[in-house]
């Protein structure tokens, strides 16, 4: 698991572009949480590239919810892109698809941008 900040992130606008490699599951939740902390502190809105995330579980969802909460506080949004079937499936189950929107389906709900 690896979380990297991509070029194009902008501290002033608060927009952060992240790329997550590997799984987001209970097995690496502690590690993932650690790496996310810095971004949660420094930025307001998030665009996450999920192309390389194979597996996600409820612990992973909770981490994304942290980003979402921060974004909501700042009246910003969170967008996920490149989710595979498994990830979309879980988002569907939790009825989070509308705001953790995969960009593939476009038409993101943007809150206050």
């Amino acid at each position, binding site marked *: 698991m690896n979380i990297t900040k991509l070029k194009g992130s902008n501290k002033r606008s608060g927009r952060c572009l992240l790329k997550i490699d590997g799984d987001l599951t209970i097995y690496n939740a502690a590690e993932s949480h650690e790496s996310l902390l810095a971004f949660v502190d420094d930025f307001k809105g998030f665009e996450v590239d999920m192309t390389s995330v194979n597996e996600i579980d409820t612990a992973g969802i*909770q981490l994304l919810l942290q980003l979402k909460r921060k974004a909501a506080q700042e009246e910003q949004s969170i967008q996920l892109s490149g989710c595979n079937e498994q990830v979309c499936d879980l988002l569907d189950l939790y009825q989070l698809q509308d705001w953790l929107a995969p960009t593939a389906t476009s038409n993101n709900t943007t809150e206050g941008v």
Partner: protein
Amino acid sequence: MDMDPGLQAFKEESHELLGSVEDILLQLEAEPDNNDLVNELFRAVHTIKGASGLFGFDDVVSFTHQAESVMGRLRDGEIKLNDTLTTLFLDSRDHISLLVDDALNGSPGLNEESKAKGVKLHDDLGQFLNNQEEEESQIDATEMDISNPIVDDSKHIASDNWHISLRFGQDVLRMGMDPQSFLRYLQTIGDIVSLTTLYDDLPDAHDMDPESCYLGFEIDLKSEARKEDIEGVFEFVQEDCVIHILPPNSHIDRYIELIKSLPEEDLRIGDILTMTGVLTKRELEEALAVQNEERQQDDGHIGKEHPLGEVVVEQGVVETKVVQAALDKQQQTTVKKAEEKQSIRVSAEKLSEMINLVGELVIASANTEATARQAEGGDLIETTAALSHLVEEIRDTALNLRMVEIGTTFSRFRRVVREVSRNLGKDIDLIINGGDTELDKIVIDKIADPLMHLVRNSLDHGIEMPEQRREKGKPAKGTLKLNAVHDSGSIVITISDDGNGLSKEKILSKALERGLIKPDHNLSDKEINKLIFEPGFSTADAVTDISGRGVGMDVVRRNIDALRGQVDVDSTPGAGTTFSIRLPLTLAIIDGFLTRVGQNSYVIPLDMVDECIEYQTDSDTYIDSNFINLRGEVLPYVRLGELFNDADIVSHSDNKLNKENIIVTNYAGKKTGLIVNELLGEYQTVIKPLGDVFKGLKGISGATILGNGEVAMIIDVQSLIQVAQTADVAVH
């Protein structure tokens, strides 16, 4: 990776439940009208289905569902249990067991044969359901009619959906369970109309423990399922989670109650309920307003706030009695929970570790006692004596933890007897005695297979066909008896049938044919009977699918030998055969008798020591180099030093200055003397198994560490005598 703890629990639980399903079915044969049993049967199968659903084992769920439906009809008295149905249920149980194992092994899929069998079973079960479908829909229709007027009542919420509020406990994820699997299982019993994920509990990013679960869900479910079924979905987590389930068309107060009881702000839940269409805005506002008024009126009185139940009563909607009844009911369920928790599950590993430690404690305590005795401090000796007494008690208790009644193993044979006798067209009764006899779990696990073999053997070859029995003047119904008793540090299990007995002629001719004996060998009956334990020996004329492939009795003996046990056979031609298996109660610690031969120490299991006498070559007790006269009895003896080629002793064997003692051992009625130099007395012995390298070593069953750190070998009396005999034959 290790098995997920949740899966592990599922594995254990399902095995247990499947075991009880079998027991119940067999018991039901005897008492078909016992409704409690039928209910229990239904519950067991239902729980397996529920748990399988949780883990997404769809194959198990769909098959189990079919079986459960038929059992449901049985429970409702719509069908009667008969022989065909029992067989069908038993076969279904086996199939479920296969499916569960398959699922636990990562679902590689069943083989074609089992698959075909599963389909057939499914269809067979379906036949008991077919004519029911219509009835069921009729019932549904009438139920709807009844409930309609209630919907008209303005106080009831006209929602066809169940409302479920879930707040997962923080430890759910850590326990290896993921909320998503519960939701997915919920989808199998109904449609999730709407779902809201609540993460209000999620703490600040820095304070969050990423392995804790902070989520909650508000769900509207459209389902025909009963409340118990929905509750059943969450069975595995109900202890750590807050779960509220409201049935369709619930009274509005139930919703208000729900809103109040949830940790989130009232309005937040209220919003969700109105958003998902459960409540209308007006309904919600009215109900909340009533509660708020109450609160304002009471503002003067510190801390006095009406609990919700009272609000409901004042509105005249629910009578006090009803509220009380509901409370009582809640209490009852908690009490019941407590009762169920009379035993706890502990992993075998932890238990072994503890017993190992107790073993070390025993050694240390023996050491302390010896040191105290050397120091000759009176007070010290007294306290150490008290200490070692306690240690002994701890040892016994610890070993007791592993003791299990053999009854469960025995009752497994009911099924075998039922099926085998049916297959063979025989009529056989199984009588079990001493099912409450306890022995070490490890021993029980290892003895199950050999027992199974002996039972099958008796059923197949021992007991004759009914016609034959009648001709011989025996009752047509054969009897197989399983018996277990404790006998001086051992357990004796006997399997006896009233069948034909062993045929001496057949055994002899077979043994000659296989070259196991020579024609001029003069064998006693007992020796002849023992030949059946030789490898590759089967006297069955026909090889059946039950037994008789000639790969059995020798394996049985080998397995029993490995447990330091012994198997004997006793047979009366025409009247029956009895196998008796003698096993040690435990494999971990024994009371030993410590002796010294030259420089080496040996421990002889105390249970087997009858007496100790001085060895005098010059007296008239001396007969031959291998026998002495023990009060008129012939006692064969073995010199331990010679047998183990103890250089020290062998070189001094002529030196009669070496004092020698005979320990008279008694194993299964046979006495043998062991010659040693020094008798050191009773000693608590913790058996340390020898490594694989010494597996084939005869005469020694293990080693132990003495208080002074020296290693002593533990004598395996039974195999030692065998070794001595072969050595003897080789010499002559």
